[in-house]
């Protein structure tokens, strides 16, 4: 089931498009309700419907993980396959584990969420659109590290190779980002609050 929320349905609007995917219709509806004042919201209650609704107009997708038939992880992989320029936040009840390290999402949010949280997430992900790919990746890696660190014990983290690799990757990316900013005659500080809020 795909539907464009009624408020925005008259014509193609210039508002940014957010795709909400959750197999629980009430949840998808509520997300749409919370976001519809600022965004054009499309909802989908299955993986297949999500892929149908996703196109170049969508700038942010909020993706449930645990769905029957096609999981959110599979939807994510399919979206990336199609090379759509969509920022994806997994919004899920599932505890993050090391399996998220290789997943190409931008942010991991644990349910339950409220309207304010959703607004913050979407705003952050939209800001990210302004930066180049290396900053994108730095953001993604930083998010994953924070997600894992919040969930897993220090011992589990210390023992995990993927986590260690992720940390190394972050160090490399941070250096590269600093160097790029230096070259541009600015610094991460000078980029201001907006950038700082990202990390």
């Amino acid at each position, binding site marked *: 089931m795909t539907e464009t929320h009624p408020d925005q349905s008259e014509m193609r609007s210039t508002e940014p498009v957010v795709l909400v995917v959750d197999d*629980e219709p*009430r*949840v998808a*509806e*509520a*997300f749409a*309700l*919370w976001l519809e004042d600022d965004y054009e919201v499309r909802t989908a209650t299955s993986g297949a419907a999500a892929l149908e609704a996703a196109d170049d107009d969508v700038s942010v997708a909020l993706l449930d993980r*645990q769905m*029957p038939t096609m999981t959110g992880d599979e939807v994510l992989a399919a979206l990336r396959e199609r090379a759509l320029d969509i920022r994806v936040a997994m919004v899920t*009840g*599932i*505890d993050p584990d090391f399996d998220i390290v290789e997943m190409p999402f931008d942010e991991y949010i*644990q*349910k*339950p*969420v*409220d*309207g304010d949280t959703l607004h913050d997430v979407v705003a952050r992900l939209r800001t990210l659109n302004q930066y180049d790919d290396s900053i994108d990746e730095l953001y993604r890696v930083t998010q994953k590290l924070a997600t894992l660190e919040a969930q897993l014990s220090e011992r589990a983290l210390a023992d995990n190779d993927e986590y260690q690799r992720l940390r190394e990757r972050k160090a490399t990316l941070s250096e590269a980002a600093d160097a790029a900013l230096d070259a541009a005659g600015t610094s991460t500080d000078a980029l201001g609050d907006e950038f700082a809020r990202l990390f």
Partner: protein
Amino acid sequence: MAAPGPSADTDTGLDALVDDAGFFRSLVEHGSDAIVTIDDDSTIRYANQGVHRVLGYRPDDLIGDSLTTIMPPRFHDAHFDAVDHYLETGDRRLDWNAIEMPGQHADGHEIQLSITFEEHVHNGVRAFSGIMRDVSRQKAYAATLESLQDITHTLMQARTPGAIGDHVVGAAVDIIGFPVASLYRCDDATGVLRPVAQSDAAAALFADPPALSAGSLAWHAFETNDSAVYHADADATTPVHDPDGPMIAEYAAPLGEHGVLLVGDTDDVAFDDHTSRLIELLAANTQAALERATREAERERQNEQLERFASIVSHDLRDPLQTARATVALAKAGDDDALTDLTAALDRMDALIADVLTLAKHGQTVGETEPVPVASVAADAWSTAGAPTASLSTAPDLPTLNADPERLRTLFENLFGNAVAHGGDDVTVTVGALTGADSGGFFVADDGDGFGDTDTAQLFDYGYTTDTDGTGFGLSIVRDIATAHGWTIDATTSDSGGARFTIHTQ
């Protein structure tokens, strides 16, 4: 009555004896330690009879020779330096009391000696004497003890009984020196001792090592919690698994409730005090290691369970909580129907909490068990868990089981609930006895749609469900209750194509 003491006569006799120089000569001559006296030039001037036993020389062969004769060559220079230094300055470079140094035996090998040096002047002649005791055996024993100490460390790192067993039989062979060694563990379910590790020689002798029970040396040791020794020639009354087998000597050391360490030889060997002590030490360390491994495994299991519960609370409650929050938002926005869904979300959370509590409170434990007729427990459970339009059919030959009645009822309630949830309100559930080769237990079958493509191995996992309304814990609870009673459970397809759960109680 007092024991007879030395008489006044013998006292007088001893007094006379100590006045006799011959007594002291005899004492020195025949003492068990080797005594060698040298002069300033390190030439041996006296050697007692003990030098033959300790060093292999006749006293006469040594007298007139240099002390270096009985010293390994690498010590020669240091010896002369030390003597010169002492004669010049009076400084001792070594402690003279019970110093441990090797000596050189007449046949060329080195022997571990404990040497005490004495200096005295006799008739104006300065003499140095060494009193030497052969400590090879003590040294070897100490080295063995040290090796056993090292193996203890390894044992404590081992995580499984199999790994512990491998280290232990290795130590019995390499350190204590018994070629045939095996570790037997008690199999609580069947009440016999089963081999978990055996040395190469043991494997060669017993390709298919037997489980041991009453009538074996190992069982005897296990049952009495006391070490037992068998020797083929010694006595016929010691229980032994196979009196005509290849073992000449066997030593069984109990490992508490865990099992038995069995060492032995096909050659004639004696278990002297040293050897027994070493075996007992190894056995004590093995027992400690097994206890630790058991504790660790239990701790790990509990940790995993705890993590699962944490995950249940955080994961399985998050989804209905999200739904609740969503429905409230929608209701506020004017959608009153959303409130119906709110009730459903709350019910689901309620059911989850009840299941998680059942698992957390009881886990894999049972209370008092008593003979319980399966038929009546099943009927009771059906009254709460069955559906009005569904029917229960119980076989007339259902067994009476030794069980915790409350927990058995919970088991049935969950199986029935599962049948109704998946087989529909008009499902027919059959409870029957296991018969024939499979006897000992019962089954619960339904005429629903069965498991389809579902991997039945996953069914009992915490939180596994194919039903959006299910909590995914019902079958975990069933499995935990079965396990707690020492039963096993499996899931197959019933005769009518529905689900069948079989509980084996034997």
